[in-house]
């Protein structure tokens, strides 16, 4: 088993590097590979060099950051809630970020992408913490079912507010569209650098709570009996998952399905040890999101299809097949 995991990790990492290279080389304007290479090592003022420098490099950076963040956040959420269905949308975090961006536009008149990002991260963080806190206040405590219900209810309420504001206010709608449909495209590198600290912090929290999550998977009482501090684990995983999703969604708009599907792929490959699970989900998330983005650039030339759409179309059949494996999802 040990060798298999190492092999999987190496394979996934190599694929991630290939995805990064593909993302730099492929686009809806065909640029010869030689020009791409020259633009990377010695940028000049030629058109090709500018496109690589200002479009493809920022886009690839964002894809790497968002893919890794969403995948790790998915692992944390699913383990923490012991619910294989937990993902940013169901937990309400995505619509919290959307609401933050809408508030930034309507109430504070913010009109730049890096400006939205702060509000998006803040909205996601507040919503995520609200879901966990409200669920803890219910009779059944933070049981998987309550968490999912509270998350779905908050998600629906916030989306409703967002849609209502957008329906009533055409000007906000124009600006919001810019944020929500761009996915990885058209994001300046500033956006990625703004969210990078949140993502690093989130990844650190994930690493710290990995052992605790292993213990928690055995059940709360067993975990306490083993000397694991479950309150610390819970807080670390909750804060980590919310930071990671908030940062990714704020920067790239709501991208569904990466956070839901990648943890299932990872679990099928390396089992349920959280250190392996987290390590493998980083490259897998990058491959999944960047790969989808590359396909989206060329599949409907000259139009682009945003990465979130491709992740859904590609990921759904794989997830459907995984769902049939009896050990993977407990009924």
């Amino acid at each position: 088993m040990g060798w298999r995991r190492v092999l999987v990790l190496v394979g996934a990492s190599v694929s991630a590097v290939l995805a990064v290279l593909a993302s730099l080389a492929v686009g809806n304007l065909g640029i010869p590979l030689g020009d791409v290479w020259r633009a990377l090592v010695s940028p000049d003022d030629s058109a090709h060099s500018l496109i690589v420098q200002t479009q493809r490099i920022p886009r690839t950076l964002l894809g790497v950051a968002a893919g890794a963040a969403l995948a790790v956040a998915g692992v944390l959420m699913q383990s923490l809630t012991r619910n294989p269905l937990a993902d940013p949308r169901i937990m309400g975090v995505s619509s919290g970020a959307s609401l933050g961006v809408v508030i930034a536009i309507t109430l504070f008149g913010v009109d730049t992408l890096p400006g939205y990002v702060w509000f998006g991260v803040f909205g996601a963080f507040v919503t995520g913490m609200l879901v966990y806190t409200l669920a803890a206040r219910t009779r059944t405590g933070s049981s998987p079912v309550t968490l999912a219900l509270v998350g779905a209810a908050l998600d629906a309420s916030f989306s409703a507010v967002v849609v209502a504001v957008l329906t009533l206010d055409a000007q906000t709608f124009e600006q919001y569209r810019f944020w929500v449909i761009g996915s990885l495209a058209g994001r300046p590198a500033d956006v990625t650098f703004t969210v990078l600290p949140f993502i690093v912090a989130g990844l650190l929290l994930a690493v710290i709570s990995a052992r605790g999550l292993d213990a928690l998977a055995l059940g709360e009482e067993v975990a306490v009996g083993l000397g694991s501090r479950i309150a610390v684990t819970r807080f670390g995983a909750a804060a980590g998952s919310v930071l990671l999703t908030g940062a990714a969604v704020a920067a790239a708009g709501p991208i569904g399905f990466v956070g839901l599907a990648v943890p299932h792929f990872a679990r099928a490959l390396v089992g349920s040890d959280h250190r392996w699970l987290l390590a493998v989900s980083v490259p897998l998330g990058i491959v999944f999101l960047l790969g989808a983005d590359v396909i989206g650039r060329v599949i409907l030339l000259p139009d682009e299809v945003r990465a979130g759409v491709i992740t859904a179309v590609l990921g759904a059949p794989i997830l459907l097949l995984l769902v049939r494996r009896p050990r993977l999802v407990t009924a």
Partner: protein
Amino acid sequence: MTRLVVRPAAAVSFTLHRRGLLAGAGLIVAIVVAVLASLSIGSTFVQPGDVVRAIFDIPTWAEKVVELRTPRIVLALVVGAALGLAGALLQGVSRNPLASPDVIGVSQGAGLAASIVIVAGAPIAVLPPLALLGGLGAAAVVLLFGSVRGNRFVLAGIAVAVALRALTEIVIVGAAPVDGQRAQVWIVGTLAGWGYDEALVVAIVIAVLTPVLFWAGRALDTSALSDDVARAIGVRVGPRRLVMAVSGVILAAFATAQVGAVDFVALAAPQIARRLAKAERPPLFCAALTGALLTVVADTAARTLFAPTQLPVGVLTAALGGPYLIWLLVRGKR
């Protein structure tokens, strides 16, 4: 749990929950109040007295206004009830509160079919039947891949739902802007512009399924038992579950095919009803009433709140149902 045993004939008996009856009565009163309020509020305000007069055919100036407002309210009641029932059946059978038609792909299947119809410029008359096929097809895939119960069902459902929504987006992106927007409006779901014809279709489906619903109401009680226990007392677990899931899907698909995806009713109504009736499983009758009440109130608000702009009813069902459900969840702590 207090139960009343009703035995109208020697061979027939069923039990009623006292608390469930109470909740049902309260919900009916609330629906009557909501309908009266909805008839009187609008661009012209009608005194409740005149509304009642118009209903009982006593001459009044407001006859025409009330007549105009009635079809949409009837439609809201019927669609809400159908969605409430659908949610209660799916949640009961899968024992998962997230199993509702808009989470497991029925709405998205209907939405994909509808957007293809609109973008292809096909006659609008073929839209409801094709949307129905889309919804049923999506559910068939989900049932084939994830057995009828538990997380596997919902996970397969989410996968199908997300993929169908993505395909819909591809269809809309590729379409002319006008068509894309029309498709988008249909998908969000609105009761504006529909009336008795649509209500009749959904009402017939509910009527046809009523015997199944009575049987399912009893069956859901034994669903609370573990499968092994249920089998031991002679329940055929598999077929029964399939029948309930399929009826839920049919109800949802018909309602969605007529008016578009009205969000959240099917998810929230059964959960709200379960807490009002203090029951273990989502109670069918109360879920239908809650769905109807939620949809009527939401549609009235959608119609009047920002007049003359009308919001999609799905926005208001979520805005009203979401916070109320959270309040019920949090209040339950003791």
